């Protein structure tokens, strides 16, 4: 393949071997495939057709959801294929950012981990949606918006440019606002409006931070900003960091920016709740926070303290608010806040260790724990949300006090729900136990025994609240009309089983996962400000 016109890109192509060039060519497909399919679905569904007898849905509209499932499966295959290869820096259109202001895509270890996570959860959600969305009309609109959201999230984790990151963050957010309001009932609209207002304020702050960084360095590329930033003044950099961290913490639902999450996540349809809680707050919140704080600003003491405070407060407040909930999905939403607090706390502890010049191994352990917990939370939280959707469809209720005895009536769903509940509560040998253990050990080694004790306390309270879930939903006497429910449709069971297998395998296969998935990602964050510079700086 001949490279583009820019001589710098041509030199880069000479450096990388042929296999690397092949890998670089398929990376943009992660974004292009879902985006193209989203628009193709709209065209297919809007074509004028003959009226089919019986008022059934035309063929073009019925083909939307299977097409979306195929595209997401292809995306997952591409991201797994990318795991093995070494992908160099990619310059869109051949414009290298060294001499001209070109846009770069990065696909290093952290991006590959996030891409696998996003596409895995998206595949499970879209398989689940086949049976769940029968109650809605215009399912083709749902598929199109879902693919837009997936494409935008993939582009967020592949973005090497601050403004590109912001633009795709916004695209994913707008698609999610529309998806939360999809049912157009009163409560869904109210939750979506609240989510929209808060999300827009957060995005405005992110753009403010990007604007200040641009005025300080004159560059938007993350690697160039990282190399130019120490020469700039310090108070302006603090303002930019404050604005960026505030906006991204709102996207990641950290306390005190969490007010939108307990309304938005329960009101959305179940596959969308799984996507929002499972990947959106991670890809647009925690991933962007880690990328910006570690790779652009560099892990210094102030940022580490802020991250640790945010994480610790979210952890505690989330679980205390969750224990008293009787609505299943609202309980899961509050637990999302708490578990994201775990991840951000681990990232902050690693940043603190790096800032004071401590041992790299300790920081690496904290990062491994945080990233492993991020992956695990994507798996078990989406599993729990999908099983709550399955329970809601069969029993018609979300209140725990109105359920009971489901383990006998719905065996597959309740088995998968039990796997998810045990994983989040941190019971061995499921994956949640190992990631929480590594975080607690990492916190102790990093010199924060109080925070480690707090993490243990929060884990115990999580266990408590999921014992409550199991007791009221799965065990116990059936209430009222629950005694006559049947098992959910098979496609829902397949999606649940897929995620349950990931939960179990994450715990058992921790060694190989660490070597292939988490260690490269941790390396990128450990290298701090110098991680992105290879092949970009002139």
């Amino acid at each position, binding site marked *: *393949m*001949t*490279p*583009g*016109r820019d001589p710098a*890109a041509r030199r880069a192509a000479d450096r990388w071997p042929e296999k690397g060039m092949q890998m*670089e*060519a398929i990376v*943009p497909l992660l974004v*292009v495939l879902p*985006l*193209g399919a989203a*628009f*193709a679905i*709209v*065209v297919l*569904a*809007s*074509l*004028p057709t003959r009226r089919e007898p019986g008022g059934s849905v035309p063929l073009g509209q019925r083909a939307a959801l299977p097409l979306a499932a195929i595209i997401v499966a292809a995306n997952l295959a591409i991201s797994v294929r990318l795991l093995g290869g070494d992908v160099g820096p*990619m*310059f*869109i*259109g*051949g414009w290298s950012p060294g001499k001209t202001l070109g846009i770069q895509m990065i696909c290093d270890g952290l991006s590959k981990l996030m891409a696998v996570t996003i596409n895995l959860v998206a595949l499970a959600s879209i398989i689940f949606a086949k049976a769940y969305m029968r109650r809605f009309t215009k399912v083709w609109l749902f598929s199109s918006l879902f693919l837009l959201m997936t494409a935008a999230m993939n582009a967020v984790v592949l973005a090497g440019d601050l403004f590109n990151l912001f633009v795709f963050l916004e695209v994913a957010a707008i698609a999610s606002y529309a998806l939360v309001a999809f049912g157009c009932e009163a409560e869904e609209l109210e939750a979506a409006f609240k989510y929209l207002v808060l999300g827009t304020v957060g995005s405005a702050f992110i753009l403010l931070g990007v604007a200040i960084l641009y005025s300080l360095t004159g560059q938007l590329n993350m690697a160039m900003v990282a190399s130019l930033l120490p020469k700039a003044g310090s108070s302006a950099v603090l303002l930019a960091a404050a604005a960026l961290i505030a906006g991204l913490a709102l996207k990641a639902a950290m306390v005190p920016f969490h007010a939108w999450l307990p309304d938005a996540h329960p009101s959305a349809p179940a596959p969308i709740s799984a996507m929002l809680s499972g990947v959106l707050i991670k890809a647009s919140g925690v991933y962007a926070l880690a990328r910006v704080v570690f790779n652009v600003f560099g892990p210094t003491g102030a940022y580490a303290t802020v991250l640790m405070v945010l994480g610790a407060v979210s952890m505690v407040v989330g679980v205390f608010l969750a224990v008293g909930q009787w609505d299943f999905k609202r309980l899961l939403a509050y637990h999302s806040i708490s578990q994201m607090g775990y991840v951000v706390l681990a990232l902050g502890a690693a940043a603190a260790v790096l800032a004071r010049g401590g041992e790299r191994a300790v920081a690496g352990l904290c990062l491994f724990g945080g990233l492993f917990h991020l992956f695990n939370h994507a798996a078990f939280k989406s599993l729990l949300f999908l099983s709550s959707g399955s329970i809601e469809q069969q029993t018609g209720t979300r209140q725990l006090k109105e359920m009971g005895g489901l383990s006998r009536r719905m065996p597959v769903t309740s088995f998968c729900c039990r796997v998810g509940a045990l994983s989040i509560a941190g019971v061995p040998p499921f994956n949640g136990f190992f990631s929480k253990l590594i975080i607690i050990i990492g916190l102790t080694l990093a010199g924060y025994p109080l925070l480690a004790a707090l993490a243990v306390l929060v884990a115990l309270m999580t266990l408590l609240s999921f014992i409550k879930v199991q007791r009221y939903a799965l065990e116990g006497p059936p209430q009222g009309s629950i005694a006559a429910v049947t098992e959910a449709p098979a496609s829902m069971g397949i999606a649940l089983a897929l995620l349950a297998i990931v939960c179990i395998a994450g715990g058992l296969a921790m060694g190989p996962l660490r070597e292939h998935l988490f260690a490269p990602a941790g390396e990128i964050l450990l290298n701090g400000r110098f991680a992105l510079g290879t092949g970009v700086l002139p």
Partner: protein
Amino acid sequence: MNQGGMTLIVKQTARLVSGFITVFGIHIALTGHLTPGGGFAGGVILAAAAVLIVLSFGGAYCSRLLTGPACHIADSAGAMMFLLVAILGYLVGGFFVSFLPQGNLFHLVSGGTMPLSNLAILVKVGAGLAGGFLALSAFRLASGAKEGD
């Protein structure tokens, strides 16, 4: 909004003016690589022409030509054309690489694939904004009678 449209003077003026507005919008998008503007600005002007027609002649008259599905199709076709321009770049070396020659300054046919992208965005934004206007104008706030999109 009066479904029957506005008075005769408004209708005559709209008939005269809307053609010029449309041509102006297309001109701004076509010469986007030479003058300020480009695809988005041209699309907004095109949609403004459509809105003018709908306001002057009434929704019932225009619902034969300017329908919801037509806007959907035009919108998505524009977006897919933009993606096509990006994918065709693979033929000459990479994602989004320009496959047309750069040409001379100040000529209409120059600037690589930028005019193609501008045209795609023109179609998309024009159809998108016109469709959005149609969807919002289909609500009836006062009574319960509504045709939502």
